Structure formats: structure tokens, C-alpha cells
């Protein structure tokens, strides 16, 4: 037994290296190194948009820009997706992420490869404390995508890479490692190493997608809010000869893990992720040794269950959030997305999913600015919206972490009391916190949301009927709008449409008429003959836009968040809402 490692756990926790990992691992795709001409010529490249980091969020951003026809360059330090020899990292993708992937054209591949689930069960000791079925909750059923799908992160990354190859516009440079940063001629300038030599590049807009150990934070003196903990876990990605139910099982106190927590989740390829909570002072090499892992698995699944270990590795988490999601570097503007903006514990799947949403939020704004449709002030809304989301996700995950790893003393006493009561009484179950599953965060203080909306929410990927009665989805309309705001009109009398049609012709907005029951209106009030008319016989679109009563119009952003809505047809309100989405400086009631 090796239990005297001099390596303190803390030294291993923040690395992307997997020095204690075990198992057969996954075979990851490898791509050819890209050697730009600048390596030979010695010229300094200048780009409009440069993305550093080809993980989930960097690739989502590159793919989103590519789909909008915007050129960008993405630098990745190695030649593959995922992490070589490592685990799958993120596994659990929310409805919002799946909707974004659907918009980008890779959802069908995820659906075919991944596993859908909606039932979760929480246990303490031998007892089930409670269970939930997400299908029965909230508005999950409105969307074409399921509540959740589980799939190894590198599959999604690989699908994004292949989609980017199809779309063009975005260039992924494999084996291009950023080695230094400086400000030269007033622009942020990177030294980049390739297998054939180095070169330099600058950019107007730089996106830091380098992840949880971003070098940009030091380069730019970024202020952060950090909270460290001592919670320790060990992942085992395994295959069995048995088939546990396709449900999320969580034990707050697992008898087979010395009464510490255990997570059990299914992924693609019939691989299960079993997460074991460890003692805070556990030695990482020891807890992730094959003997220990096999003993633990045997205690949980029975000695007779055959186990094939795909990957094993210890991990710890911290909670960290930048104080601002963007920074200036000379004339260049730097945006933080994904883990380079905030790092959270894994509970509730609030890491990768919110990174995907960061990318989706930033992509259409960068596209609008680079394509000359909006003022660069629009980009300020990225911080306003995604920092609110980041701080919410940090707070929510910190609360879960505190429930799962209570401090000794009164925190522990309250958790014991909560579990004791929750086994008997419904009310106490609301206090049991094994993770609050990620949602599409609403924006309550965004400068580009109409002031009469308390918050901007994500409109789900609802279905409708095209004029020919075929089924369509909101994402079809968003793709067609190609980066422009989408105006849905329920009530569109001929007499009031002149300026709206003008804006549509000028390329400011895309309009669609939504037919419900118009009744016998006088001729002047009959809906205009739109080229684009859809039918909503099951009345899904209006509730998805948040209408309780009669729907008039709704303005939906390219990331499917609601910008404004109204009953009737208020042309002035629509004009103001469009101006906000173009980054107009002061758009208020006083205009």
C-alpha cells in the first residue's frame, strides 16, 4: 500500500496534466499541424478575431462565427480534441446547449451518440431521499431538444471541428501554442510556437478560451474572486457487463464509500462515470490506484460484476470568477469565455454548459460588429449578461459544494438534520442540495433588453408549421435570420407595416408572421401577405416568448434570447429594441 506520497494533493489539483490517471483511455482524432506563412516570412499577422484555445467553448465560438460567415483564427496548443490520455471531462449537456448545437448543425450526431436522461435519484445510506423527472418540470417539454443528454466532451468537440471544416471561414491552427504576450504598436501581440518555428500575430478582438489556467489573467492583471475548498474526488469511467438504469444516481452518504458522496452517470459507448468523494487529506496516487478503484467498484456493484476501466483520475475543484468578462489590451479588446472567465465545481453541470452559452452570446455580437451592422458598444452587453450568469453559477455551485462537503461542527449538524427530515417530510427535500441543474441563465440587467421586460430569457426551440404544413423549429428561423434579430408578428395589419418592411429590406431585421386564429377582421386589419408565414396551431411560440395573454410581437436575438415583446403592434417600441441590438448609445423611454 502506497500511502506516503510526498506530493501534496493541492499541487495536482489545478493542472490539466493527469499524472495519476489510469486506464485504457480513449482514442482521440489527430489533426495536421497548421504552419502559417508568417513563420517563414516573419511578418506579423493581424486578425479581426483571434480565439486562443480549442476546447468546448473556443470551438463553439469558432463554429458560430463560421456559420455567420465571419472569419476568425483559432489557435490550439496540441493536435487533438479532448486532453491526451485524459478523461472525457464534461459529460452532461443541457437543453440550452443542445439547442445551440442544433443551431450549429451537430445535434443529430450528439443525439445518435449520446444518452438521454431525465430521472434523477438521491440516496442517503440505504434510503432513497427523493427523485425527480425533468420531463415533468418547467418548460422542458416545449423544446425539440431533451432536458439533458450525456456524452463525452471530446465527441462534441470533434463534431464541432468537423462542422467548422465544412463551413469554412474559421481556421483552426493545430499545434500553435501561444508562448508570450506583449503590446506592440498599440495592439495585443502574441508569440506563437509551431513545430516549424514561431511567428507573431495581433488582433482587434481576442477571445481567451484557454480554460481554467488562463495565462491571460497574469498578462492583463485580471482581478478575480476566488474561493478554495478541500473537497476531493476520484473519477472512474468504466464499462460493466451489467446495465444499470439510465438515470442519474447520487448518494449524499454512500455506505459503499465510507459514507461519503458518490455520483453515477451514463455516457456514450456504454461507459459509466462513477465519481467517488474522497477524504479531504486523501493521497491522489493512492485513491486512484487500480487496486483501490476496483475495490470501490466491487463494494458498489458487487464482486461478480466485471469492470473494464476506461479512465481513472483524481480531481479537486475551486471556485473562481473574473470581476470583468472583458479587458482592454492596447487597442485590442479581450473577452473571457468558459473556464477562463469562471471555474466552478462540477455539481449541476454548470461549467461547460455555461461556457457554450458564453460563446453563443458573444458570437452574434462580434459578427454584428465585424460585419458593420452594430456599434462596438453592443459588445459591452457581453459582460453585463454573462457576468450575471457567471456569478449566479458560482453562487449556486458553491452552495451545493457546501452541502456536499459541510464544515465540521454546525454545518455538519444541519446537514444531518436535513437528511433525517427529508427521509420523512417533503418540505425538507427542498433543502437537500446535490446540484441544481444548469439552466439558460436569464439576464436581468442587460442594456440591450427592453426596459419593460423584468428579464430576458432564452426562447426554447419550439416547433411550428410552415405554410406547407411541414414541421419547422425556431432554430430554422434563427439560421435563416443569419445573425439578424428575428421579429415575430402575430398581429400585422397592412396599414401599419410600412416602416417594418423598410427595416427588413435594409437588412436590420428578419420578419415572420405567426398565424393563429385571426377571425373575421376588416380588410385593413387583415395580416399582410408575408413571404414568410408560419402557423402555430398548438400555440407553442407565444408561451415560449413569455406571453400569458394575447401575443402581438416578439423580437428574438440570434442566441434565441428575448429582446423585447408587446401586445398589439408598437412600431416605435420595435424601432427602439432594434436600435439597442445595434449598440445604440442611449435608448430609453425619453427618446
Amino acid at each position: 500500500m502506497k500511502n506516503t506520497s510526498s506530493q501534496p494533493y493541492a499541487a495536482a489539483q489545478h493542472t490539466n496534466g493527469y499524472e495519476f490517471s489510469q486506464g485504457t483511455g480513449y482514442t482521440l482524432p489527430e489533426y495536421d499541424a497548421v504552419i502559417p506563412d508568417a513563420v517563414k516570412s516573419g511578418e506579423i499577422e493581424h486578425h479581426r478575431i483571434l480565439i486562443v484555445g480549442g476546447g468546448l467553448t473556443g470551438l463553439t465560438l469558432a463554429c458560430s462565427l463560421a456559420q455567420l460567415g465571419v472569419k476568425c483564427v483559432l489557435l490550439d496548443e496540441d493536435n487533438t480534441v479532448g486532453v491526451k490520455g485524459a478523461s472525457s471531462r464534461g459529460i452532461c449537456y443541457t437543453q440550452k446547449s443542445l439547442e445551440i448545437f442544433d443551431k450549429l448543425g451537430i445535434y443529430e450526431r450528439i443525439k445518435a451518440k449520446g444518452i438521454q436522461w431525465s430521472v434523477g435519484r438521491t440516496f442517503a445510506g440505504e434510503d432513497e431521499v427523493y427523485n425527480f423527472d425533468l420531463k415533468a418540470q418547467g418548460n422542458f417539454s416545449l423544446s425539440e431538444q431533451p432536458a439533458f443528454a450525456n456524452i463525452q466532451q471530446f465527441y462534441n468537440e470533434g463534431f464541432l471541428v468537423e462542422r467548422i471544416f465544412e463551413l469554412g471561414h474559421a481556421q483552426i491552427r493545430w499545434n500553435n501554442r501561444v508562448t508570450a504576450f506583449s503590446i506592440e504598436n498599440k495592439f495585443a501581440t502574441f508569440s506563437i510556437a509551431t513545430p516549424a518555428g514561431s511567428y507573431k500575430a495581433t488582433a482587434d478582438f481576442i477571445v481567451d478560451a484557454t480554460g481554467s489556467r488562463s495565462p491571460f489573467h497574469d498578462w492583463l492583471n485580471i482581478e478575480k474572486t476566488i474561493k478554495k475548498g478541500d473537497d476531493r474526488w476520484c473519477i472512474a469511467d468504466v464499462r460493466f457487463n451489467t446495465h444499470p438504469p439510465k438515470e442519474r444516481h447520487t448518494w449524499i452518504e454512500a455506505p459503499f464509500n465510507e459514507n461519503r458522496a458518490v455520483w453515477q452517470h451514463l455516457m456514450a459507448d456504454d461507459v459509466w462515470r462513477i465519481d467517488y468523494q474522497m477524504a479531504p487529506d486523501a493521497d491522489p496516487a493512492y485513491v486512484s490506484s487500480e487496486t483501490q478503484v476496483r475495490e470501490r467498484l466491487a463494494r458498489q456493484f458487487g464482486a461478480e460484476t466485471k469492470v473494464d476501466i476506461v479512465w481513472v483520475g483524481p480531481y479537486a475543484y475551486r471556485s473562481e470568477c473574473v470581476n470583468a468578462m472583458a479587458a482592454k489590451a492596447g487597442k485590442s479588446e479581450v473577452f473571457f469565455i468558459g473556464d477562463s472567465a469562471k471555474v466552478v465545481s462540477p455539481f449541476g453541470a454548470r461549467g461547460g454548459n455555461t461556457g457554450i452559452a458564453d460563446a453563443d452570446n458573444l458570437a452574434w455580437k462580434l459578427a454584428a460588429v465585424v460585419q458593420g451592422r452594430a456599434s462596438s458598444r453592443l459588445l459591452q452587453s457581453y459582460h453585463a449578461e454573462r457576468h450575471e450568469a457567471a456569478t449566479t453559477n458560482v453562487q449556486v455551485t458553491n452552495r451545493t459544494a457546501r452541502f456536499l462537503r459541510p464544515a465540521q461542527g454546525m454545518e455538519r449538524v444541519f446537514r444531518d438534520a436535513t437528511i433525517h427530515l427529508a427521509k420523512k417530510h417533503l418540505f425538507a427535500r427542498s433543502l437537500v442540495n446535490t446540484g441544481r441543474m444548469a439552466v439558460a441563465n436569464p439576464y436581468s440587467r442587460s442594456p440591450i433588453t427592453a426596459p419593460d421586460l423584468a428579464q430576458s430569457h432564452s426562447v426554447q426551440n419550439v416547433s411550428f408549421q410552415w405554410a406547407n404544413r411541414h414541421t419547422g423549429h425556431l432554430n430554422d428561423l434563427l439560421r435563416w435570420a443569419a445573425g439578424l434579430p428575428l421579429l415575430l408578428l402575430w398581429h400585422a395589419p397592412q396599414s401599419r407595416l410600412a416602416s417594418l418592411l423598410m427595416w427588413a429590406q435594409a437588412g436590420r431585421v428578419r420578419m415572420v408572421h405567426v398565424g393563429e386564429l385571426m377571425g373575421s377582421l376588416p380588410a385593413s386589419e387583415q395580416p399582410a401577405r408575408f413571404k414568410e408565414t408560419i402557423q402555430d396551431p398548438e400555440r407553442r411560440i407565444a408561451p415560449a416568448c413569455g406571453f400569458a395573454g394575447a401575443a402581438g410581437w416578439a423580437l428574438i436575438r440570434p442566441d434565441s434570447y428575448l429582446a423585447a415583446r408587446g401586445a398589439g403592434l408598437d412600431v416605435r417600441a420595435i424601432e427602439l429594441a432594434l436600435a439597442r441590438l445595434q449598440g445604440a448609445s442611449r435608448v430609453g423611454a425619453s427618446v
Partner: protein
Amino acid sequence: MKPKIPMALPNSAIPALADPDGFYEALLDAHSGLSHDESAAYNARLVLILAHQIGRQEVLMQSLALAKA
């Protein structure tokens, strides 16, 4: 004969707390930095204040019995 304790209140499917996680966090924060004895004293004061806020004798009697079980 033992009095029959109505279970309707704590077993209501309608959550009484609008923000359970926020309450739980505030409760733990209130105990941060307190010694064991200080925490116990804090809890005692809190129970008495909550009893006053609830104000209904039958609900308090039910609650005393439920916490025993």
C-alpha cells in the same frame, strides 16, 4: 391515548420557502465562526424567535413532536 399529530403542514407538496438554498446558506453563514456553545445558544434564540413568529400553539406543538421523531 396519545394525541394524533396532523402531518399536513410539513408534508405539503407546496414548498413554503421561496428560496430554500438561499435560506440554508444564510443559516450556515449565521453560524460561521461561532464555537459549539455559541452555535447552540444561537440556535436556542433562533427557535424562540421563530416560535414567536409562527405564533400558533397547535403548529408549535406539532413541530415539537415532529422534531422528536
